[in-house]
């Protein structure tokens, strides 16, 4: 798939691209530059205001980079669409911050809908793996066996049930009347599954080495908990806003 892209953009044959030490060195350099850029994005996220243009640019770039990474992962995983949407919350996080720090009112509604779609996509995509539509990841089974002390069939059954709940959340967060409980579940489950990476894989006897790998893996999954939390907050805000507006209208009449 990449052969024509490499030839057209870099003017290199695939053999050269795949075997050249110079190409590999440049790819390593590029990934480090991107890493540094993402660190800048993280800083931008912490200090962004509507008037700090450089932070806005970084957040947009960060969103684009995350989308490209998600596509690359999807491509690597045999173009399984679920792999892309599994990262819906992660990709949406910087964009959500941009929307959230523009102004109140109209942006809040757009923000809530955007995040609702992102959360729904993320949970539905995870559900596809959990129920076995896509091959169930072995490490998920291992984590469940480790943390819940289940045997393999029990862990597979547990994940299947979790996958069903993922679909219920994906639907529930969109349907009026069920958004709040769905978002609440998503917050809790997102937090648990992010923490599971640490709890199941970081060991006291190899704490330094295992935490170096698994702490970032946990941080990457925090949007799966935090974005539903934002949705909850926005639902609560819109209720209070609507309620206040209704009271004002009532008083005026």
């Amino acid at each position, binding site marked *: 798939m990449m052969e024509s892209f490499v030839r057209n953009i870099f003017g290199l044959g695939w053999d050269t691209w795949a*075997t050249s030490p110079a190409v590999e060195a440049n790819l390593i350099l590029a990934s480090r530059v991107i890493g540094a850029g993402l660190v800048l994005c993280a800083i931008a996220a912490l200090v962004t205001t509507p008037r700090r243009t450089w932070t806005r640019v970084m957040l947009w770039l960060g969103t684009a980079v995350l989308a490209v990474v998600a596509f690359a992962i999807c491509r690597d995983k*045999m173009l399984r669409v679920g792999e892309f949407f599994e990262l819906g919350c992660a990709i949406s996080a910087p964009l959500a911050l941009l929307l959230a720090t523009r102004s109140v009112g109209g942006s809040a509604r757009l923000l809530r809908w955007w995040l609702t779609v992102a959360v729904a996509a993320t949970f539905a995509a995870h559900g596809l793996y959990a129920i076995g539509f896509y091959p169930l990841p*072995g490490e998920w089974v291992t984590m469940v066996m480790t943390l819940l002390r289940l*045997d*393999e069939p029990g862990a597979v059954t547990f994940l299947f049930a979790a996958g069903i709940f993922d679909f219920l959340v994906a639907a529930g967060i969109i349907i009026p009347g069920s958004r709040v409980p769905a978002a609440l579940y998503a917050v809790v489950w997102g937090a648990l599954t992010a923490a599971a990476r640490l709890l199941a*894989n970081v060991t006291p006897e*190899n704490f330094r*080495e295992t935490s170096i790998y698994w702490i970032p893996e946990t941080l990457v999954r925090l949007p799966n908990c935090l974005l539903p939390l934002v949705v909850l907050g926005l639902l609560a805000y819109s209720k209070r806003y609507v309620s206040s507006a209704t009271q004002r209208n009532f008083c005026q009449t």
Partner: protein
Amino acid sequence: MTEQNQTEPMTIMLKHIPVALAALFAFAAPHSANAATDYFRLSWRADPSTTMVVGWRQNGGSSPVVHYGTTDYGTNYGSYPLTATPARITSAKGMTHSFARLAGLAPDKAYYFVVRDSSGTSARMWFRTAPATAKDLTFVAGGDSRNNRTPRQRANLMVSKLRPLFVLFGGDYTDGNSNTEWSEWFTDWQQTKSSDGRMYPIVAARGNHDDNTSLVDMFDIPSSNIYYALNIGGSFMRLYMLNTEITVGGTQDSWLTGDLTSNTSAKWKIAQYHRPMFPMNPRRPRTLRNTTRGPSHSTIMR
């Protein structure tokens, strides 16, 4: 002699020419190379010293039969004393795969075979069964042939020159597990065949770019979860093919523990699996995190 009498011998001859031609073609047909079978591969699902799985793509034709024996009769299929029909036929990746499971073979012996179907007869190929006792042997181990076809083809050519007893393949045969890629992979795999027609069994493991079902369909692997073991040379060597894409605990670990316990006589135990316990990439931290993905470290190190 009348004019009619003068032409009669010619008429008779002309009448018999088509029959003669038909007989000639009938005689020639068994030696036709236009068999509808290709993408040959060998594998093991039982004792390598007495069995062999012959697999191929059935690309048309019907009623394939493997004709085989210990004497080389070339493509003269009728001379081979033994036959086997496919024990399993499956459709996968846009191909029809047939697998004939040969059994009752003699250890450390050359077997010659052809596959004949309604379209014709394949080229003559041959293989060697594994020895039943300890003996010097050669095998080739590799994998990850997925994203650069030229080195893959070169590696396959090396197999044909090195003439090992078998090839261990550690997973990631193709990149996207697509029909086209598998077709290309099998095309390239034919390059492992030596110039004298010798073929080499592939002992397959699963990688992260593969799935269980595809590998069972491509290589007739005896385990649907793609973990299994084979003895080579009796108790000389035991090969373990492990699956790092499913949980390394659970049933796989139980099986491995039990198998190691009941096969203590094996002098050499060799495990093949896709994800290394320690990353080969020097930029990644050397961490035992891979024990959550790789085989149970404590089980392997017993």
